[in-house]
């Protein structure tokens, strides 16, 4: 239906742990389309993190092809992959992923600076935080924020430069359900308003209910890939 942003073709990923080889992904195929709000679910150890790391150009596949925005990652060196991550992808990690000595605004600003945004980055950082309901707390350091607030700052940092694709590995794992819902609603809102594409992994059925597409992994393979009608989502009413 849409543009394909990411194409994962018959990918395997082996990890060597001592003498044991772990087959984390075993011939996985997946296409991520523009506008997806995709949830990747599956039991622990099924390969969710491994898949997100490959798509996020943080790691390379053992075999198969991963192409992101038309770039075959296997042909890209460390530097170019870092550049791709910085300029075109947004990341939200589980927890504790802000620079502790910088305020919320400075955290967002720092990444904008790395991305080469000029003096307007200060305003962009603030307005992004403000959009996520963090305007009043923009000058606090992470240790003065709750876990949910910290994750909102992390989302703000990931989306401030409007990347086409945002990857989030269990972004709500350390949040209570109220905060988890709030975070999901925010990401959902950004996807609707800014035409960004989100892919997140989760265990949480509540989180899954926000997704427009749910991909289930088991033993390193996709076992189901369902499209849901976002408008039929019960939680939308409360948004």
């Amino acid at each position, binding site marked *: 239906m849409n543009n394909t942003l990411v194409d994962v073709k018959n990918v395997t990923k082996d990890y060597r742990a001592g003498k044991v080889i772990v087959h984390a992904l075993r011939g996985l195929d997946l296409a991520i389309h523009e506008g997806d709000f995709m949830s990747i679910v599956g039991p622990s150890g099924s390969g969710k993190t491994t898949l997100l*790391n490959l798509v996020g150009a*943080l*790691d390379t596949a053992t075999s198969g092809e991963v192409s992101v925005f038309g770039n075959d990652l296997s042909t890209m060196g460390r530097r170019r992959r870092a550049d791709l991550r910085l300029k075109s*992808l947004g990341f939200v990690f589980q927890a504790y992923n802000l620079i*502790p*000595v910088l305020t919320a605004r*400075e955290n967002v600003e*720092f990444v904008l*600076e790395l991305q080469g945004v000029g003096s307007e980055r200060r305003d962009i950082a603030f307005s992004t935080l403000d959009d996520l309901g963090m305007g009043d707390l923009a000058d606090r350091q992470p240790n003065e924020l709750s876990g949910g607030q910290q994750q909102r700052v992390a989302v703000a940092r990931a989306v401030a430069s409007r990347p086409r694709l945002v990857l989030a590995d269990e972004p709500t794992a350390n949040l209570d359900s109220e905060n988890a819902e709030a975070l999901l609603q925010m990401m959902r809102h950004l996807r609707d308003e800014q035409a960004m594409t989100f892919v997140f992994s989760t265990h949480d059925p509540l989180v899954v209910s926000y997704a427009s597409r749910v991909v289930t992994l088991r033993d390193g393979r996709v076992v189901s890939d369902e499209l849901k009608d976002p408008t039929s989502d019960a939680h939308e009413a409360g948004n």
Partner: protein
Amino acid sequence: MVSRSTLRIAWRNLGRNRKRTILALSAIAVGQLAFLSVAALMRGFGEQYLDSITGPMVGHIQIHAPRWRDDRSIDVTLRHVSATIAEVLQDPDVERASPRIYAPALAALEVEGFMSVVVGIDPAAESHPRGLVPGEHLSGQLGEHRVLVGAALAQKQTIEPGMEIAIVGQDVDGSIANDLFTVSGVIPSAIDIVHSQGIVMSLEDAQELFLMPDQAHEIVIHLSNPDRIGDVVARLSSLPLLRDAEVLPWQEILPQFVSILKLMEGYIFVVLFIVFLAAAAGIANTMLMSTFERTHEFGMLLSLGCGPGRLSRIIATEALLLGLAGVSIGTALGVGLVALTSGSGIDYAALGGSASSYEAAFAGITMSSHTFPKTYVSDVAVGVIAVLLTSLLSVTWPVLHIVRLEPMEAMRS
């Protein structure tokens, strides 16, 4: 270039573990304090040395007839002394030129004689504070067959002002020279030969006694700026009147003092090295701990696409800030301490537990145990640069660690 955010992150990280930062700061500050104190003492001592050397006795430059220095033979003299001095004083860098005569002689109060050295000087030229007879009260007591006797000699031979003294020597022709003089005063002197053997008289009296009209053995020259010694030596050597004379800088006359000064300078740098080895250990330890503690944070930033160069710059900036802060505190303390002690000076003898200060004669020059420490801007600069270089060097290991980090592995830690 270091961006403002790099600076901000580095600065705030130093505040993250205050105790550790303060410890490292103290190590650096104490290092700089120790270095500046030792350097100031050495410099003070060195200046005092130099002052004693180039002061009354040796001057900055000396002129002699060639070979006079070999055995100080009385008949090896400089001629046309007045004309030479007049010409030497024409040189813009020359402040004073003092002619001198040195002659061993037998002296006697009554029957029994004793050995002495007659020192003939120009009272007017030696009346300045660093001359042989500083002040009018001394220089005014010379001339018209009046002499000043070295204090130690006077004490040993119980010579008192007002006494008559007979001097018997050999003139330049080898004949007996003798005359009667009146002791006008007793003169303590930093110059050993004057202090313990000297009978000081005016140049005219000495020239007359030893039959050496318009002659002298030595012309001692003081410059307004000792840094110009080399240039002045070159200029004076080319004067026609001095074509046959030797014109020597003090360094060539007393080479052993040059080595002593070099040795002291060497000692300063040995202290510098030891002290900054300790400081380096302090900074390196702090930076290493701070880097390893932040492996997760660095992994996160690398995952976002931040380059390892930026992370290394943050660490290096942190080390530099730490070094800069520590060395500033150390410099303030060091300069302050030196300023406190530079007025009254420090007595090595008292430091060593001795009740009174002492003086020691070396190569004919008396040194005091009392020293006035002195801060040299160049020493402060050397200390600051040493600390900053040390800081930068101490991040080598942390930077190697950062460059080898794999983003995802680092994040798992």
